[in-house]
């Protein structure tokens, strides 16, 4: 019931977001067909505007847009000739999702053990070193990691290609550059969770019964400590999918972020609104999925 309500609530939310994006984009002076060169003759301009319904009042355009949206049609791009926004999404989203997914795996593969290890070794130099490493990765923006990785591993050592996206070999550096920030995040959340779990009563009880420390940590504390990580996984995936445009920009990857940045610069109305909506849907959907997963993992959690 709770989730049903949440899904229902998401619909007006998406409407608000689409209206907001639509209004903001159209509010900016200048249009998609203003060029550096002399403007085209008035007749041509009028014809173009008529073709894309840009001469209508804005509420009418928005209504038309919503109508198309109901049929799953995000409209046509005004700048990428003969491409619909659906085309652009179909072309870019798989690439961005692969990149985001790989970065997610990287962050989890390094972050979880790091957090577990620093929590178990609490108060030792291993803990200080590991925790410093975690906070250090949080402070390196992707546009600093990416060039450094390129300089060291692609230019100097020549182990990896510098850019582009054509083989699994090309995917390693971008995924690391994108995922590194989240390694630290995951490690810190994991460490916090482990420390809380290690102090809880059921762990003390299990210890009193004489369970060895390793079993205690791996079988009992770890399961509870994973919960905060799961609830962070949703926003994290959303961040990875929507925040990849810097990495895509540096590595020349044909993902969806490139379209977004270019279109907001070119005032390609439909693409900007469509992609904003897509991102919002991803964000809402992932948060919902995480909350749902939470109820499955932790039977104590109940939403009314």
């Amino acid at each position, binding site marked *: 019931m709770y989730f049903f309500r949440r899904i229902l609530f998401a619909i007006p939310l998406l409407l608000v*977001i689409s209206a907001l994006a639509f209004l903001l984009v159209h509010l900016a002076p200048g249009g998609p067909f203003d060029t550096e060169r002399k403007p085209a003759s008035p007749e041509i301009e009028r014809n173009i505007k008529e073709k894309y319904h840009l001469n209508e009042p804005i509420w009418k355009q928005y209504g038309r847009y919503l109508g198309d949206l109901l049929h799953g049609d995000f409209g046509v791009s005004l700048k990428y000739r003969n491409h619909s926004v659906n085309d652009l999404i179909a072309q870019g989203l798989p690439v961005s999702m692969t990149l985001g997914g790989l970065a997610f795996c990287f962050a989890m593969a390094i972050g979880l053990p790091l957090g577990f290890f620093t929590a178990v070794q609490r108060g030792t130099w291993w803990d200080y070193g590991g925790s410093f490493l975690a906070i250090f990765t949080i402070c390196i923006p992707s546009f600093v990691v990416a060039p450094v990785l390129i300089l060291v591993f692609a230019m100097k050592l020549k182990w990896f290609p510098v850019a582009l996206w054509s083989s699994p070999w090309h995917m390693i550096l971008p995924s690391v550059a994108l995922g590194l920030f989240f390694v630290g995040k995951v490690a810190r959340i994991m460490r916090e969770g482990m420390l809380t779990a290690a102090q809880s009563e059921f762990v003390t009880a299990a210890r009193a019964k004489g369970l060895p420390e390793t079993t205690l940590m791996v079988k009992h504390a770890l399961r509870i400590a994973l919960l905060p990580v799961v609830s962070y996984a949703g926003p994290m995936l959303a961040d990875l999918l929507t925040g990849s445009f810097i990495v895509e920009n540096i590595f020349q990857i044909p993902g969806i972020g490139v379209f977004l940045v270019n279109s907001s610069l070119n005032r390609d109305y439909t693409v900007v609104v469509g992609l904003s909506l897509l991102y919002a849907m991803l964000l809402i959907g992932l948060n919902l999925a995480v909350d749902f997963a939470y109820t499955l993992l932790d039977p104590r959690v109940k939403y009314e």
Partner: protein
Amino acid sequence: MNDEKVDSSKLIAASQTTATVVAKPKLSTLNSQLHASPGQRAWRRFKKNRAATWSAWYLIFLLAAVIAWPLLLKISGGDFAKRHNPDQLSDAQFAPPSAHYWFGTDTHGRDLFSRTLYGAQISLLVGIVGAIVSLVIGVLWGSIAGYAGGRTDSTLMRIVDVLYSLPTIIFVIVLLKTLGELINQSHFVKNSPMLAGKLHVALIFIGLGAVSWLTMARIVRGQVLSLRSRAFVEASRTLGAGTTRILLRHIIPNIFGVAITYVALTVPAIILYESFLSFLGLGVQPPMASWGTLMAEGVTQINPIRIYWWLIIFPGGVLVTTLLAMNFLGDGLRDAWDVKAK
């Protein structure tokens, strides 16, 4: 005391004296603990955190360098000032770091050290002003929601929920683009590109502050909810104090510690946002520099023939160490203020 050779009478006397000696400082610290204000106690805890204090010193040093460097250039004059002028083009293009150019030079032969410090002005300013904007909005929003309660509260917090589900960075891009165009088109900046540039930076301050207040509002609301029913607030109300007075005199001073802590964590987040935007060419416009634009310039110079590592390592290094210090400082403040942690 542990010496076994001393006889018993001496031992008793010694134990008595040590007992009194030990007891005294204990009592006095207890007393001062009792008499210290929450702020003083937090300060004492903060001073013990070595990572946080070192970070504070580093940031003070950086701030001093950022302020002093332009003054130094102005005072010294002559060759030195000319070489280190951040906007002075020269023939020494892509000079590696040396005694002359400590961080090397960029594609136009400009001194990278100076450019990094001048860029720090913009980056730090955006971070601090943006954080203050987010502080003001967040504290007002959160305290009104928490204090008013009922329908006002749920409406205000529902708006926060909606804004939370917007993809922030995209929202900022669209917002800055729109307002930036409006500024460029308005006629009083038509004749003065300087003013347009300044307005654009002001826009970044406000825009980034305007999207970063959400968490602050949530935290403040929670604090206000718990403060509102405390005895001293009830007492003030029975004495006839109005809502505004209670909010300004009793509630807001009490959330100060929490708010300051969160501001310290907001500053690096906003600096990061700004450098993201500038990196994409949507933030600070050249010839003005920020750490983001410096990184962007470094990245465009990546080529397979020559490696200009200093264009990336130095601005990036200063950015990363600054963010690191700010995060340590924020964590230290949080630990110092958090009463539950004790």
